[in-house]
């Protein structure tokens, strides 16, 4: 049995090893006796604490990230499997409480932060110049205005081109290409899926000139993203471990439709310790959601292994499956759950992705993140698009670490908006430029120094 406190007992009884002992033993000279600590194998609370300490030290001292991940997920026990795309009612509230996330409607104001950084950058360059000029204040605002105008002018030139790209992709998939009828209950694979692949790949290719991060990015089709964590406590209900207090374990196994991974991290949106709202507290057991327990391998994966240089996430694209289509929810009298589906998907998938990225950098619940991890996601059903941005501020969600942890994770998200009204006779009617521009802004997001 692989227990977290499993230790190999040392063999100290053999006589002929005593000659090697003086060179090996690290005992300080002033104590004749070994340190008095609790037993490691007894059935007592002190022993359990000692085993837990030993496990934490083992993970802290792991020589490589792969070894750390292996030790972190070594002990297998029944855990709740959290599905980002779920039919459960009000799942986004539950997911926010599992992941200690604050949901802020609307997207973070990026232009304000860019404008705030621009005068700071120009001031720094002015001071680092040859001589500090008293007139540095006057040119600085003029320079920022010019810079903002130039940056604003350049993308807006080819909105028509981007719109043409999007319309071409849409028309090819839905009108021009001869296709068979969609398979029953799999109409997402017929048109919206290929359209999304086409759209993202051509937009990324045309925008890579403006965003050097995209030029070094890696595009994954249908990758796997997994994350395993503990949050809260419960008493084991039945079985040979009945009555013991155990952490509540969760696992997310997600399959985004598309994913862009980059070698450099996205900049933080708000500082690490910001508090933008409240995390919902739910008094019920997670199984009431409904959420079911299974026991299998504890996986942590961002889409590729640790050795990949593109180890940070940029944007994920999710396709809503047929079971959770708008028409089905409307027919079942659940119109208010339409947005819940998008939000739950955004929150759960992005939490899993950012947390796995943080684990790939060596952070875990006992070694909390020292810088925020930011990723973006677009959840769509082919016509309606919802945009999400997630900032991971803390991984410390276990019972001991959450007590003194004021940090909360933050998720910004929009409502789902249609990209177009209808496609008929080889033309797209009612194309919504705002949605396309938001997608372009997402793809152009990059660190400040690039």
């Amino acid at each position, binding site marked *: 049995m692989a227990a977290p406190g499993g230790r190999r007992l040392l063999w100290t009884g053999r006589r002929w090893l005593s000659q090697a002992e003086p060179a090996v033993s690290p005992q300080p000279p002033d104590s004749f006796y070994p340190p008095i600590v609790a037993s490691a194998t007894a059935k007592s609370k002190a022993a359990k604490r000692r085993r837990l300490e030993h496990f934490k030290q083992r993970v802290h001292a792991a020589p490589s990230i792969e070894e750390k991940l292996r030790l972190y997920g070594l002990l297998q026990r029944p855990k709740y499997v959290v599905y980002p795309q779920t039919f459960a009612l009000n799942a986004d509230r539950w997911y926010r409480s599992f992941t200690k996330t604050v949901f802020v409607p609307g997207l973070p104001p990026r232009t304000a932060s860019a404008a705030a950084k621009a005068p700071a950058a120009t001031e720094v360059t002015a001071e680092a110049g040859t001589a500090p000029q008293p007139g540095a204040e006057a040119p600085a605002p003029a320079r920022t205005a010019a810079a903002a105008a130039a940056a604003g002018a350049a993308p807006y030139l080819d909105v028509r*081109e981007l719109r043409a*790209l999007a319309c*071409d*992709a849409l028309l*090819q998939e839905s*009108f*021009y*290409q*001869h*296709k068979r009828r969609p398979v029953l209950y799999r109409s997402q694979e017929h048109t919206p899926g*290929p359209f999304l692949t*086409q759209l993202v*790949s*051509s937009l*990324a*290719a*045309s925008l*890579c*000139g403006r965003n050097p991060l*995209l*030029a*070094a990015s*890696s*595009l*994954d*089709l249908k*990758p*796997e993203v*997994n994350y395993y964590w503990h949050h809260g406590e419960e008493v084991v209900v039945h079985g040979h471990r009945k009555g013991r207090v155990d952490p509540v374990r969760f696992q997310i196994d997600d399959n985004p439709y598309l994913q862009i991974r980059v070698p450099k991290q996205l900049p933080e949106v708000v500082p690490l310790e910001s508090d933008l709202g409240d995390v919902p507290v739910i008094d019920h057991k997670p199984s009431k959601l409904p959420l079911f327990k299974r026991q299998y391998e504890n*996986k942590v*994966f961002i*889409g*590729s*292994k640790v*050795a*990949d*240089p*593109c180890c940070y996430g940029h944007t994920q694209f999710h396709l809503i499956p047929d079971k959770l289509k708008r028409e089905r929810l409307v027919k079942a009298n659940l119109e208010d759950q339409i947005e819940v589906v998008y939000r739950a998907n955004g929150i759960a998938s992005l939490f899993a992705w950012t947390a796995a990225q943080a684990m790939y950098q060596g952070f875990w619940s006992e070694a909390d993140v020292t810088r925020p991890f930011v990723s973006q996601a677009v959840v769509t059903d082919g016509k309606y698009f919802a945009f999400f941005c997630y900032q991971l501020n803390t991984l410390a969600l276990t019972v001991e670490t959450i007590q003194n942890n004021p940090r909360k994770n933050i998720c910004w998200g929009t409502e789902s908006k249609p990209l177009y009204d209808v496609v008929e006779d*080889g033309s797209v009617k009612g194309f919504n430029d705002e949605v396309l521009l938001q997608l372009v802004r997402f793809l152009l997001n990059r660190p400040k120094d690039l």
Partner: protein
Amino acid sequence: MLEGVRQAQWLTKTKLVEGLPPSVLGIIDNPAHRLEEHEERVKQAVSHARLWDTREPAPRREHYCPVLFEDLIHICRLMSMKYPSLTKRMLSRNYKIAATWERESILLQVRGLNGILMNSMAPIPPVASKEEILATEAHVLETFYPISPTIDLQEVNVYKELNNTGFRDGYPYSHPHTLFFLESANVRTNRFRPEQLRAKMLMFAFGNALAKAKVLYGNDPKVLEQPIVVQSVGTDGQLFQFMVFQLNTTDLVSSDGIKNLVWVDSDQNLYEKAQCVPEVKKRVVTKPTGIYGFQPDTFKKFLALYLHGTV
């Protein structure tokens, strides 16, 4: 196809030329394109596909072959930074082609899902000069008596002689540019051998070119004023086959006259070996994990075929 490329040549009335055409070789040799910069990225793409993409230590061919293809196409698409006209391309998967022709009183057709097609708005300019085209008149097609040229072909009752490019009229990206074939079956017997893969590539490139020719110039068999060029790339994740096909004539009933041309560059390895698990002999690591024997020339040819027509 038993006889491989020879059989495909007879069926499509084509003359084979070894090596890639001079226009493609010119793109490779042109120092202005700076194809060497991408070597690092291609190595990363190969490592990603072969080593890092799944949680298993060694991803299977069904998984790594499409991933490698997607990564290479992603790198090629990013070149549109330098050449804006590359954005006028569109990939289409799961499209169906239909082309019918007659060859010495045998009715042949090419139908169905073939591979991934890249369409472009502008056609590729003809690769062979007029003299070369006229010189093919003298070439005699290889026959392989006593084997019939239609061996291994499926006999089907056809009720409609279809010629369909797979797209409706008015499609803006109407010219087929390159066809990609991925041999990604896990079991070796389910995959095409390189010779047969080249034959398949030739047949489908011909089918696409013929369907396009019939749409542009009508159903009458004639020699084309503007030959149609379709490229194709086939791979099984490690070995690459490159092919450039030029359709000069739709007059295929007789075996004389002007023939079509195909340039083939076969069996190009992108890398020799991908070590997924380190080789350990007597508790010493002899071969660490990684990609061995990487050959950048293969990717240069891939990229040159991609850029062909716009550069």
